[in-house]
């Protein structure tokens, strides 16, 4: 397959996944902002979220204060914000458009339709139905896009690069979602006890990654931070966990393997096996936030390597 085609497929999938997870992060933060608390806490919550999404500077260039409305506007509609859902869906569609001949018509139409709808969305419409309905819509379109991908695409290289993009992005994003929650905690062993009683915060987090029912099913017990972390980091049967994401990254990577990719595959395999054999208490011993940051650095490195090995054209 053309390197450029693989590149577009990879980024098409990443941007769709990013749009979905941005909706998830916004959803959980928005819900937490509605819990009884003072205004400063709400501001800290939004600024923390933007920091973890690496969009704080871009936000402050346009807005002076953190208000729920301004952040939502910035993260959903702002055309200058490369991380806004608007921009993610546009980039998804642009990448799909560039390789529409490689996609099944259903997949192309799904992406095109999502974009056409997004383009017609307005702040007024959002306020009318509430942000929750919009976030649901984004998630739903992402589910649809993934379902159409799996349901219609030939199981060849094109599908592998799409899947690779999806799971590499998800690994990064789930780590960020966890970081948003752990932001205000100090590194160290006491993380486990902190806010342990704050049932609403943890349930909102679980719901944001569609893991609330899963948690109940797996643990049949009350919600504790340690178990939440274990579920979202180490449980390979949890579809949005870091372990699951890395398992998919590794298996798709080995299937597109070429003459240059051995080291990239090794690094992905190493990261995957750490998750497969790791224990949550030892991860907490070294500091959970630091662990998540290191993990994201390694995901970033993998992304660069995949690009070098497969996607960026080089002569002969």
């Amino acid at each position, binding site marked *: 397959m053309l390197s450029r085609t693989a590149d577009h497929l990879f980024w098409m999938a990443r941007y769709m996944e990013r749009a979905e997870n941005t909706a998830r992060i916004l959803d959980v933060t928005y819900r937490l902002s509605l819990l009884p608390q003072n205004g400063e806490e709400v501001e800290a919550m939004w600024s923390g979220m933007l920091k973890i999404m690496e969009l704080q500077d871009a936000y402050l260039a346009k807005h002076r204060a953190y208000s729920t409305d301004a952040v939502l506007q910035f993260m959903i509609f702002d055309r200058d914000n490369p991380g806004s859902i608007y921009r993610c869906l546009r980039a998804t569609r642009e990448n799909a458009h560039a390789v529409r*001949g490689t996609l099944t018509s259903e997949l192309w139409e799904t992406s095109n339709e999502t974009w056409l709808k997004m383009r017609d969305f307005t702040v007024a419409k959002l306020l009318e139905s509430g942000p929750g309905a919009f976030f649901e819509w984004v998630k739903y379109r992402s589910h649809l896009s993934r379902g159409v991908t799996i349901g219609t695409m030939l199981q060849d290289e094109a599908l592998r690069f799409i899947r690779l993009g999806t799971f590499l992005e998800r690994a990064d994003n789930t780590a960020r979602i966890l970081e948003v929650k752990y932001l205000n905690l100090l590194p160290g062993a006491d993380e486990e006890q902190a806010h342990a009683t704050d049932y609403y915060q943890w349930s909102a987090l679980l719901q944001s990654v569609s893991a609330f029912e899963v948690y109940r099913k797996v643990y049949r017990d009350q919600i504790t931070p340690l178990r939440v972390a274990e579920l979202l980091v180490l449980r390979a049967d949890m579809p949005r966990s870091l372990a699951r994401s890395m398992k998919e990254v590794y298996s798709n990577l080995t299937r597109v393997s*070429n003459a240059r990719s051995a080291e990239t595959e090794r690094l992905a395999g190493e990261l995957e096996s750490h998750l497969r054999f790791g224990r949550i208490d030892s991860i907490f011993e070294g500091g959970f936030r630091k662990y998540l940051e290191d993990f994201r650095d390694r995901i970033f490195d993998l992304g660069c390597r995949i690009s070098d090995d497969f996607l960026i054209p080089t002569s002969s």
Partner: protein
Amino acid sequence: MAITKFFNEMTADDGSVRAHYAGYAAWLSETPADRIARKRAEADSLFHRYGITFAVYGEESGTERLIPFDIIPRIIPAKEWKDLEAGLRQRVKALNSFIHDIYHDQEILKAGHIPAEQVLNNAQYRPEMQGVNVPCDIYAAIAGVDVVRAGAGEFYVLEDNLRVPSGVSYMLEDRRMMMRLFPELFARHRVAPVEHYPDMLLHTLRSLAPVGVTDPTVVVLTPGAYNSAYFEHAFLAQQMGVELVEGQDLFVSDDQVFMRTTQGPRRVDVIYRRVDDDFLDPKYFRKDSMLGVPGLLDAYRAGRVTVSNAIGTGVADDKSIYPYVPEMIRFYLGEEPILNNVPTYMCRKPEDLAYTLAHLPELVVKEVHGAGGYGMLVGPASTKEQIETFRKYLIANPEKYIAQPTLALSNCPTFVESGVAPRHLDLRPFVLSGTEVQMVPGGLTRVALREGSLVVNSSQGGGTKDTWVLEA
């Protein structure tokens, strides 16, 4: 107004419905208006969702326009098509012979049938192609010939598009749409199928592979996603199951063309290019081109890759060469032309210029190198000011223009805002030449949606119709 009488495709002069439209006309009158309205709305939303669009992207993507689609088909009876097809095949054969001759022995020039300077000083003539042999001596593998029907029902060829003719995807999508919206109509008519066009195109391209290549790799070369015809490029690549490449995906090494893939370089044998000559190879043509492949011409001249259509075919579809096509048919094939050529005044000739200037209100004046309906004057439909402006252009640069009588383009009932009304149309059938000449029965029918307009180009607000060739 010089024109009074138009040929109506559906109804005869006495108001009766022509035999080949009888079935459709009956269906149209018995189908409730609200059902038709619903289907028309459905067609619009489907075209949008499929992203079957054309035209320029602004800064914001997703702003591409739809080409309006009309649900009343243009119907051609079997006998008429048979003659038309024979005429088109004849014409394209002669044109391919002409291009081959021009880039080899130039016998037609030596015989004095065409003034040599008309050809050799033409900007579309590529000296780089002189003496180069191409597979099967085929230069224009894909031709999209524009045909119109005039007042008495006779066909004229308006233009031979031999460079990168587009529109075939709309022919195919219009058919798909009609079959989806109105399956019952196809049960009632024996409409000749056109859906195998991509297959035929692939067969043609493969048959033109360089000598010695048995299982050629074919690619479609596009200028990219922002080109106005990108939809068609992607569509054809997908339908043929070949890669859609951009210039940056290809490179030349030792006169061989390769594409960059995730598994390393892969050889390319046949390039169906939708990039103009000027942009194809920055080493030889426009140096600033980002759309081409440096060294492509070297590989081509070495016979290691086939470029379709060939470089330099523009020399044969130029408006200043057009008047000589009947002469080519006689010269190369020893036959009389089956299809009519429109009488053409070449303004570089003083007597033709004088005639043109004296008859501007009744003529169509076109730029020799113009395309897409830009830079033309339709005398009968123009204001005095527009005519006087063109008079100045003509006097200043007569060699840049030709003039033709305004043809009474046939019309066909079409849905417009006020209901159903006649609108003018043309027809672009596609002729494929490889080891054999092939056509699908049909073509792209373009319709001028503005009342009285004779300009059907989509860039000028034209729409399309499905084209039905009825089987005998």
